[in-house]
């Protein structure tokens, strides 16, 4: 079985600079792949090339084993693409619009009505099928776009920030829908919301400034950061004395002050290696007779990995 999405040596240059620099990644059939990156990293450009909307400067994209440049129509039939900017025809009604899109995507006439009804249900639009698209709120429009994406029964979904502009309730619904769809469909999900990736994706590709900086599962990525551990401590003492003493502890590479309250100094220590600094910290507090009121070792979140990968490169 061919890879659902296979990108090799993809480069996109504009007059003003390079948007994508020699990118390569692949998505297995049936996988939900997160596509993560800060704004302006090149996510949308990459997705537009994947869908044939833009032509790359060099490199190839294969969808289901088909080259996007040669078999554009075949590829478009297989993918459901939801662009970042959801622009639908405001003068049409939801149902009318979905019928039109179903027709374009080759849903046979006899099935069309049923198929539109199905996607209306999937995207929780059954209460407003005859509303004008121009009068819909952002959240509803987003869901119409998602329904549009699904109506042709695509094998691969490419979603560019599908939950932007939704309220928390709708975000949860959309995530559930994506997870549910992921059982039968391959999904490439672009986002900059990290919990979304942790919740829905099996693997993540992190992109920054047009380059791929990491491809891994969310948990593996988190482990990669485990090399450094962050410990938060609050001691009642002189800030300068605390800072000085903490730096002397074995394994500590960085001490940063996080504020002062009621005479207590809050510090964050970054440590390397296997050594647990917490015991040494306790000993220090006892020896110096500094009252200690907080001592926590924080787990590295995917957010830290993300920040680390996209700022230290």
């Amino acid at each position, binding site marked *: 079985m061919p890879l659902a999405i296979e990108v090799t040596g993809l480069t996109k240059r504009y007059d003003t600079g390079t948007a994508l620099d020699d990118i390569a990644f692949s998505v297995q059939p049936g996988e939900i792949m997160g596509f993560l990156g800060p704004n302006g990293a090149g996510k949308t450009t990459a997705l537009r090339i994947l869908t044939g909307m833009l032509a790359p400067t060099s490199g190839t994209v294969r969808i289901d084993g088909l080259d996007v440049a040669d078999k554009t129509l075949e590829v*478009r039939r297989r993918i459901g693409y939801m662009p970042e900017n959801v*622009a639908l025809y405001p003068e049409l009604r939801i149902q009318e619009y979905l019928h039109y899109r179903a027709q374009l995507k080759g849903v046979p006439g006899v099935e069309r009505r049923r198929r539109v009804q199905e996607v209306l249900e999937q995207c929780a639009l059954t209460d407003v099928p005859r509303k004008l698209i121009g009068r819909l709120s952002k959240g509803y429009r987003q869901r119409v776009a998602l329904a549009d994406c699904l109506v*042709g029964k695509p094998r691969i979904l490419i979603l560019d920030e599908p939950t932007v502009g939704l309220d928390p309730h709708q975000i949860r619904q959309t995530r559930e829908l994506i997870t549910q769809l992921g059982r039968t469909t391959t999904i490439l999900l672009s986002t900059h919301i990290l919990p979304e990736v942790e919740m829905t994706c099996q693997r993540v590709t992190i992109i920054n400034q047009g380059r791929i900086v990491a491809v891994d599962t969310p948990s593996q990525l988190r482990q990669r950061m485990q090399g450094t551990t962050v410990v938060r401590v609050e001691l009642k003492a002189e800030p300068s004395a605390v800072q000085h003493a903490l730096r002397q502890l074995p394994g500590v590479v960085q001490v940063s002050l996080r504020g002062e309250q009621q005479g207590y100094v809050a510090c964050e220590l970054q440590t390397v290696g296997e050594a647990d600094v917490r015991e040494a910290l306790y000993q220090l507090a006892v020896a110096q007779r500094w009252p200690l009121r907080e001592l926590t070792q924080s787990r590295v979140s995917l957010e830290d990995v993300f920040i680390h990968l996209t700022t230290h490169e």
Partner: protein
Amino acid sequence: MNNLFALTARELKSLWYSPVLYVVGAIFLLLQGLVFWLLILLLIDPRVDPSWTMAQFFFGGSFFYWFAILIIAPLLTMRTFSEEKRTGSIEFLLTAPVTDMQVVLSKFLGAWAAYIVLWAATAAYFLVLRMLTPFDWGPVLTGYLGTWLLGGALIAVGVLASSLTRNQVIAAMLSFVAVLVLFSVGILDVFVKDPEASKLIQYCSFMEHLRAFSKGILDTRPIMFYLTFTGICLFLTQRVIANPRWRS
């Protein structure tokens, strides 16, 4: 074919739902009413042969005929591509499994169909006249055919202009100027002495070709002229849309 049908139906729906069509239609019918009134004034003279005069005056014989076409072709086509580019809906359109040519053709056919229907509405004038006086339908029918073909060519120009910009007003101005230039090609004839060059200019004159139609002559040369021109414009539009630089 199925795609082309769906796309064209969508174009027509958008025109039907938008106020532009009604404003354009009202202006158009007002102008044609004026032409009809002038025609009646002309026909009052008993020495005038109605069969001969009517079509020649109605189709291209007055300033208002050209003026009406000059404004409705840009107005009907200005939003076709530029509006989709401005809002971004073109991204939905061009990532659906449709060819660029189908998209271009649907935009053209939608606007052209509206144009044809607007002109067809003026048939009422001839039905009224027919009740009052017998005349030859031939020149009227070829007059309509010529007007539709001429309009098709100008609408293709409008679609091309619209594909070049995200701004409807710029698109309308571009096609307005282009249509004006096409209408005035014949004027160059005055400045040319060489008979061969003069022939060439006459062959390229948009106004000149319509004369044959309004006389009731069904000549293949003007038909091919308008159709070829339409085809070239639509081909160029397809090239523009296929070019990634101009896509969005």
